[in-house]
């Protein structure tokens, strides 16, 4: 049985996701020691801009013109609307070259071996429900349930699946939910109009569980640790990361935080991009 990781990267008008994916892939190889492949609509940009990229395979998907835009913060005081290409994640079942696949977002920075044992688990589908915000004061209720009336939240950011009939059904279900997003949005009282993988995954897990507390989705080892886009990454040194975390009630002021040996979802992609370019992410 083959193991490997997949990172999706579709560049938008203002963000080089391929750059982030190259960095994230190096971290995966360093700590998890598995091959990493990229799914992208811009293989030319990958080979031209990053000729020494670490990818095992490059899986090309057709260019998708998206009309989805999302407001991305870059620290607490700045935000801009940027194209958001997130509509092909459900295709991972067909596109992955591996039997058991770890899928991560390009802004999920692996700094530990915590996910390694998950490859030895013979579960169909492993994903994070539990999470920890590095800003301790911030409520994480938006990442606990998809809203106060509805079902548990699951992070589409990081998951491991084994190719089989059950997971095929799961990804087909996500495709169906995406195709009928307006309906499911209404049904599950989701206020965001844009399609979001986290929500589609959460609804699909709920349905796979027979709309009750079922065992389809098994929790990945550890917790999904994250900073939001209102925080900033300063630097990464070995398995240590430094951040500026938004202060409570003091917009534009930050608290220094450090992590060691913890995988972190760096939602401030601008900051991550600046760090990769060399120097600090602030």
């Amino acid at each position: 049985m083959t193991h490997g990781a997949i990172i999706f990267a579709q560049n938008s008008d203002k963000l080089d996701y391929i750059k982030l994916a190259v960095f994230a892939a190096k971290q995966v190889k360093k700590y998890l020691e598995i091959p990493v492949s990229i799914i992208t609509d811009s293989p030319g940009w990958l080979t031209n801009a990053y000729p020494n990229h670490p990818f095992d395979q490059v899986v090309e998907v057709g260019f998708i013109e998206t009309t989805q835009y999302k407001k991305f913060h870059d620290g607490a005081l700045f935000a801009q609307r940027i194209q958001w290409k997130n509509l092909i994640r459900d295709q991972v079942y067909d596109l992955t070259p591996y039997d058991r696949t770890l899928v991560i977002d390009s802004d999920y920075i692996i700094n530990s071996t915590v996910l390694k044992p998950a490859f030895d688990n013979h579960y169909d589908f492993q994903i994070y429900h539990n999470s920890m915000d590095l800003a301790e004061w911030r409520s994480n209720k938006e990442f606990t349930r998809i809203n106060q009336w509805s079902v548990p939240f699951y992070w589409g950011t990081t998951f491991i699946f084994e190719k089989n009939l059950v997971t095929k059904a799961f990804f087909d279900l996500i495709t169906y939910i995406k195709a009928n997003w307006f309906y499911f949005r209404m049904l599950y009282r989701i206020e965001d109009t844009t399609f979001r993988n986290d929500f589609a995954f959460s609804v699909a897990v709920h349905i796979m569980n027979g709309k009750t507390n079922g065992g389809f989705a098994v929790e990945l080892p550890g917790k999904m640790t994250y900073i939001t886009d209102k925080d900033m990454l300063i630097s990464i040194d070995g398995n240590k990361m430094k951040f500026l975390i938004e202060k409570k009630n003091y917009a534009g002021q930050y608290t220094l935080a450090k992590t060691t040996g913890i995988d972190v979802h760096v939602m401030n992609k601008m900051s991550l991009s600046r760090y990769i370019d060399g120097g600090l992410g602030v």
Partner: protein
Amino acid sequence: MSKGFLIYAEGASYIEQAYALALSIQYSQMGIKSVSLMTQDTVPEEYQSVFHNIVPIPWYDAPGTDFSAEHRWKVYHATPYHETIVLDADMLLLEDISKWWEYLGNHEVRFCNRITNYKLESVVDTYHRKAFVANGLTSPYYALHYFKKTDFALEFYKSLEFVCKNWEWCWTKFAPEEYQNWLSMDLAVAVAIELSYTHDQVLDNTSPLEFIHMKTPLQGWERIDTRWQDSVLHVLNTNGDLVVGNIKQSKVFHYVEKDFITPKIIDRLTELAHGKS
């Protein structure tokens, strides 16, 4: 040895709720389906066939107050069964609970002490149960409990009778903080447990007894001053699945709001009970 469910009801709306609950037992239970109704009311003829026994309230002198707590301790004396699960009328049984009977058969009295909300999250009710918390009492739910006809159970219900008949004194003695100026059966049971020192004999953490409690403050919503039916949609489908806010409800559902029982719900329950769905 006979086993069955006992429902206490006084007043037309409670009789209708008891009828709905009995119908839900008929379609959801694989094993024990016998249901008895303890009431002083005249039960409409069309409801009667679903009850195996309609038993009068023993020593009945006057109607009870709001929650008829004055008569509820009498369930031990009224039940026609050797083993009884007592249910509040405003509940539905949605899934087979045969395994519960197996567990409960090893015990003499068991009160439910665990609830969830419709999101199937375990909740500890500190909103309605201030007196329980303030006085360090256990947190039993009379709405779902079990007893077997034994000497121990009889003694326990004698304690409960005493508490119900002397609740003001008992509250002063055992629940003086956050004083409740009414007789509630849950608090009466908690005090009876203190009085008889039977914590380990009537409560345990491994008991399967659990129900979904639909009081709004338990649902984890920001607004707690609404009715749950105004906040989330529900449907009872033809399979007998009750889905609330897109979440399939399990086992025992305590809907609390009386108008949950509509002619449409009764029709669906009737179809399910008669195997027409």
